[in-house]
């Protein structure tokens, strides 16, 4: 069956069973390999992407429910040479160890910062609670999110808009 998705600002047509979780379509059909398969049960957050701006477990989101919604993955935030603000903050804080959870962490953090650019530490902790890191880099991840928040504050309004352009 042909399914139309809106991913990182672009319309993408894929041939897939409508019950297929978004994660498999992203990785296998669209070659967007940032989101990772962790548990397949919504318990670890490695597969987190944004759906209409909210953090969502892509492993539990069948493409059938995505009609008319926009999906944003870590690839939609920036590139290795032009990273987005949150990506840059994670890099500056060296928040990744093995890196497997990081795309999911970045996307969940992005969903928070899109909604609340200046979250409190308690808000950050509560919001990030669903995502796990088995290497134990949580303290660096929290620092990176705070840093991203500060970087956003320091940015002129015009440049904040520039990152939003990539948002589908």
């Amino acid at each position, binding site marked *: 069956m042909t399914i139309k998705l809106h991913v990182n600002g672009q319309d993408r047509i894929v041939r897939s069973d409508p019950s*297929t979780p978004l994660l498999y379509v992203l990785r296998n059909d669209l070659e967007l390999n940032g989101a990772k398969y962790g548990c*397949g049960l*919504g*318990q670890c957050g490695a597969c987190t992407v944004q759906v209409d701006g909210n953090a*969502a477990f892509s492993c*539990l*989101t069948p493409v059938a*429910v995505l009609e008319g919604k926009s999906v944003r993955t870590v690839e939609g935030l920036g590139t290795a040479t032009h990273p987005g603000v949150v990506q840059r903050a994670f890099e500056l804080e060296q928040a990744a160890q093995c890196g497997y959870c990081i795309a999911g962490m970045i996307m969940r953090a992005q969903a928070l910062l899109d909604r609340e650019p200046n979250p409190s530490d308690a808000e950050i902790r509560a919001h990030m609670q669903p995502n796990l890191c088995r290497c134990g880099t949580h303290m660096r991840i929290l620092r990176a999110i705070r840093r991203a928040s500060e970087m956003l504050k320091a940015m002129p309004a015009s440049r904040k808009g520039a990152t939003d352009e990539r948002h589908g």
Partner: protein
Amino acid sequence: MSTRLVRPGGGRRAIWLGLVVFLLGVLVAYAATWRPPIEPVARPLPSAFSAAQVERGSALASLGSCAVCHTSEQGATFAGSRALPTPFGTIYTTNITPDVRTGIGAWSREAFRRAMKAGVSRDGHHLYPALPYVHFTHATDEDLDALYAYFMTRQATEAVAPANRLIPPLGFRPLLAGWKLFFLRQTPFEPDPTRSVAWNRGAYLVEGLGHCAACHSPLNSIGGEKQGMAFAGGEAEGWKAPPLDATNPRAGTWSVKALHDYLRGGIEQHHSVAAGPMGPVTHELAQVPEADVSAIAVYVASLMNPSNRVEHSVDVVDRAALAAAAQPQGAEIFAGACAGCHEPGAPMTRERRPLLSTATTVLANSPDNALQAMFSGIHSPEDGQTPYMPSFHDTLTDDQAALLAAYIRLRFTNLPEWSDLRAAASRVRAEEN
């Protein structure tokens, strides 16, 4: 009429007379409802209480789930400030730590007993029935004193609850005295000599400090429990609290053991996982003496099965092909979002988790709890202790949740379809906590 119109003085007299009658009425009501303050006391020292009494109070505090309401998300235990949404506005729970200024540190034993039995604060103001004193009033003085001993030996925390936000005129507390005339019966618990010791113990706990009926009974329009309908099922924080009497659709399958396992562990293989506000209750019940949980199970089982006929069979219904043909969209969503855990044979179903075909939520007459589980998920009060379900609030629309619920009901039960699912999904999403 016309004569009055030309004699404005008479109209003014009528207004004055009305005002005087009204003020007299207010005065009489105030006199009838006024309660004197009880003098503050010096905070009792922990050494004033025996360890045995404090230990007993600890178990009773868990049986009453005191900490669940009197603790906010970020706050210290028993320091209050948790928002309780009610149809009448938001009430913030009070600080029941022994802090002298902001808690109950200056309360005497008598002041504590009066609050629990008559719903009156130490300074004489009436308490809202969000504090379930209509049930606590049945507790013995000995138990109330044990609770007092327990609270007075906790860590004192300074915390002032935010002001309640109630619809006018409910902020005027003397009105509560009128409410109490209808709904507060200050009677001691009367044991039934024809029943077992365990049954009577269970009845005492369920009807008194356990205050189970506070959620599991229907309420009338002014927040009182409907007469003669105790345990006929109610609502709590956007979830349905199922009936605990014979009207429960699965009443016949709740044995004493099943109830015990559910209450003690928050999960029972052939019925349910304690979700929503019941989760923290089972967490509390895991910390009380085993005999008390068994006694509660004995009593509730007798309410659900008055004739004591318990069915032990478990019907496992799975009409996959039929449901997929009738609800193809629901089937697609189920396969992508739910099957990893809920498909018969999935790893979770081998961990003594309820199958959807035996889950109370799926077999209930109302779809509310099934929809609520989809939107809110299921969260353990303590991480990793009881089952977890992620929330699908942001990925499923109301229409998609309705289609999914219709598919699940059709596939895993032989019961009538849920009606008006689309409207139910919108309503439940709005009530979500």
